[in-house]
């Protein structure tokens, strides 16, 4: 178990962050423990649940399945980076408005996957939303309200109105 150390530099939510990590350190542990961004969660150990989803170089990835060293030089967006200037992102608004969360544990991953889905497909059908979030498990909502939340966000992003304050 001789572990080599690596110096990595990652742009996280617009800020450059640097750290030394073990070669085996998972990206999710780097995010949560090194960077202290605990919004990204760990819900399983088989890459099924998606609670750890973040955006890495524009793509939604499960950060439990990527090594921290693989993020070297990349840009990363976590749930903490969604709201801007005290204003919620439309996907955050949608989840709040439509009761798209209950315990909140899957929520950061769901938000990031929804964010990515709407980047790729700004006007998804219900079927496309359901397929799009199928790599993220939620045990509380039964998904209907999450689908409605994503539809709300899609609508909002196509027709921007005054964003909702974060508090």
């Amino acid at each position, binding site marked *: *178990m001789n572990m080599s150390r690596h110096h990595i530099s990652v742009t996280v939510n617009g800020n450059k962050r640097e750290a030394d990590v*073990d070669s*085996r*350190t998972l990206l999710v*542990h780097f995010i*949560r423990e090194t960077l*202290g*961004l*605990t*919004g990204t*969660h*760990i*819900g*399983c*150990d*088989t890459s*099924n*649940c998606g*609670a750890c989803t973040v955006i890495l170089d524009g793509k939604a990835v499960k950060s439990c399945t990527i090594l921290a060293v693989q993020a070297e030089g990349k840009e990363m967006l*976590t*749930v*903490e980076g*969604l*709201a801007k200037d005290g204003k*919620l992102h439309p996907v*955050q608004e949608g*989840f*709040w*408005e439509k*009761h798209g*969360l*209950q*315990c*909140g*544990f*899957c*929520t*950061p991953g769901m*938000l990031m996957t929804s964010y990515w889905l709407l980047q790729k497909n700004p006007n998804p059908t*219900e079927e496309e*939303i*359901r*397929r799009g*979030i*199928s*790599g*993220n*498990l*939620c*045990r*509380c*909502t*039964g*998904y*209907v*309200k*999450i*689908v409605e939340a994503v539809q709300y966000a899609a609508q909002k992003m196509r027709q921007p109105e005054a964003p909702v304050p*974060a*508090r």
Partner: protein
Amino acid sequence: MAVEAPVIHEMGHAIKRKEDPRFIQGHGNYVDDIKLPGMLHLDFVRSTYAHAKITRINAEKALAHPGVLAVVTGKDLEAAGLAWMPTLMNDKQMVLPTDTVVYQGQEVAGVVAEDRYAAADGVALVEVEYESLPVVVDPRKALEPGAPVVRPDKNTNAVFHWEAGDKQAVDKTFKEADVVVKQDLYYPRIHVSYMETIGCVAQFDSIAGKLTMWMTTQAPHAVRTVASLVTHIPENKIRIVSPDIGGGFGGKVYVYPGYVVAAVASIKTGRPVKYINDRSEDHQSTAFGRDWYMTAELAAKRDGRILGLRINTTSDHGAFFGDANPSKFPAGLFSICTGSYDMKAAYAEVNGAHTNKPPGGITYRCSFRVTEAAYAIERIVDILAHKLNMDPAELRKKNFVPADKFPYKSALGWSYDSGNYQAAMDKALKKIGYAELRKEQEEKRKRGELMGIGISSFTEIVGAGPANTFDILGLKMFDSCEIRIHPTGTAIARFGTKSQGQGHETTYAQIISEELGLPVDAITVEEGDTDTAPYGLGTYASRSTPTAGAAAAMASRKIQAKAKKIAAYLLEAREEDLVWERGKFFVKGSPDKAKTIQDIAFAAYTNHPPDLEAGLEAVHYYNPPNMTFPFGTYVCVVDIDRGTGEVKVRRFLAVDDCGNIINPLIVEGQIHGALAMGFGTAFMEEIKYDSDGNQLGGNFMDYLIPTAVETPRWETDKTVTPSPHHPFGAKGVGESATVGSPAAYVNAVVDALSHLGVTHVDMPLHPWRVWQILKDKGVAL
């Protein structure tokens, strides 16, 4: 100056949740988010065997590994008198084994290290040698003579025998019956799979002599008391904090061995210790749900009138009897199994068994075994309808407890508070277009297509419970609320319950808002910290609204009574001349000269009557006079693919009656979530074991829970039949749909196949199981 009245958002408003801003911005505070200076990590060596003698544990290599500080074994705990701990059902449970392991995945040794990676390394380096022992995994076999005995400290696998009802009276109904149906029903073993696994951070402050545990618990106060009784640490030196909880569903009522080891490790090392289960560990060792083998029999007249019900059950409790039940109810509230039907006599029997499987039984939103009860009655009623060639809706209507018979005394002794079963069913059938669906089904059958309609008209029993019967280890199952109104008219309210996603920060505030007229935004709700919250038994079995919600109303009313005295003083009037209109008192006939609750709050600290104590606060410990009995009718429509056996739920309508509603949005969310869990139960989820006791569903690769792709678009509606004994007529709703929906799914699938002679299929109804039936019946494509 005209001041706009504040928006109150009292009961009945579908307001957005107050707790959500932190969750949608990544600022929730779950146990694994807690990071304390010097914190160590605890990980476990787990048994690879289901039943074995431990012949040797060699921790040398682990202890030599960089970062590993200690390896804790059962022998170490034994020296401290902590190798065993009590369970909630007056059994005892191994914290760590001293010589024998009794299920696969059981904690064998705890490795304490500087970080989670070093702890995992240490786990891999601990060498454990086992000598395997004979295994029993089927509770029916466990009760046969000669079966391997699971427990080293017992000479039998029998856990308990429980029965309810008049056996002779039921036998008589079976003699009088024109028709009798009988069916074996297996309710599979499932795991609730909250998205956040269990864990804790233990911090022992040796100077103060105080142990603080942040832990994933649904019942922090009870944990504190039990911990104090077991460890003899004074109760004021134990603080249990439930931070944000990522779903509980009953699985986080239990006290798990890892919590105890973490506390011991913190006491021994003087440093905080974090323990978080991996998903696989969680799935293989924490509490399961169900695993009941039921045989249900119904006696009826030819016209469909039900006379009597008999259910015999063998239940699996794993190696330790630790079900999170009220202590006087070893079989939970299974005696609700007569359901929505008026019958002369019923008898239910449950025989509990130990097996080489993890302990548990009461989890997965089951309302203390009401899931099993509702499934049994709703399935056997459908089987009777099939036998009589009657429409299942007609048969149900014929046997419903009539609306004018409430309060209704059931054959097994419960006093149902209120109900109108016919109304809920009528609404459901009309809304889904039942008659048209039956026509469509008939036409499809002619074309060889498989379509089914399933109904479930369940009755729930929640709100545990009245102090004369409901306790956990002697602690009465009241719950509590303490409200303090600040001088400037805002408030903090604390409760003995603990939300795990149910939205208490919003709904409790709405109750207080309803009672006192304070805006919801002016009320902070806190739960889960035993140093600050009033004592309560916690959140599970849909009890929060019936108990702590009631306490919120009662505490508010105490405050209102004091506010009235202050208002009378301020208005220089007699109390009996005052009128209360939400948020203000005024003298009858002079509403323009009102004193608002905010005025009164300020006066309570600045200008109160000389003969009255200062302050405006109250606490109430609510002892419910009875249980509440939510109900509903669910209708499920399925189409079955003859090529693959895949069942597509085309529609699912839930008409629920949970009494008066606090927040319609949250109620709908609760129903949706529980419908999805019922869906998972019916179609996907099962933990199986092979004959050697290897668990075959130990992670999310092997144990499938529903995704957005499989789950249907739920339809919901409601009827409102208030509880007559609850302060604001609410009943509770969290588990109605896990109780009511599984039978609807199964009834729909069986209905689709009934013309082929199929009368029952056990859950889960996954494609291969259905396809095998299609093949047997010669209709598979």
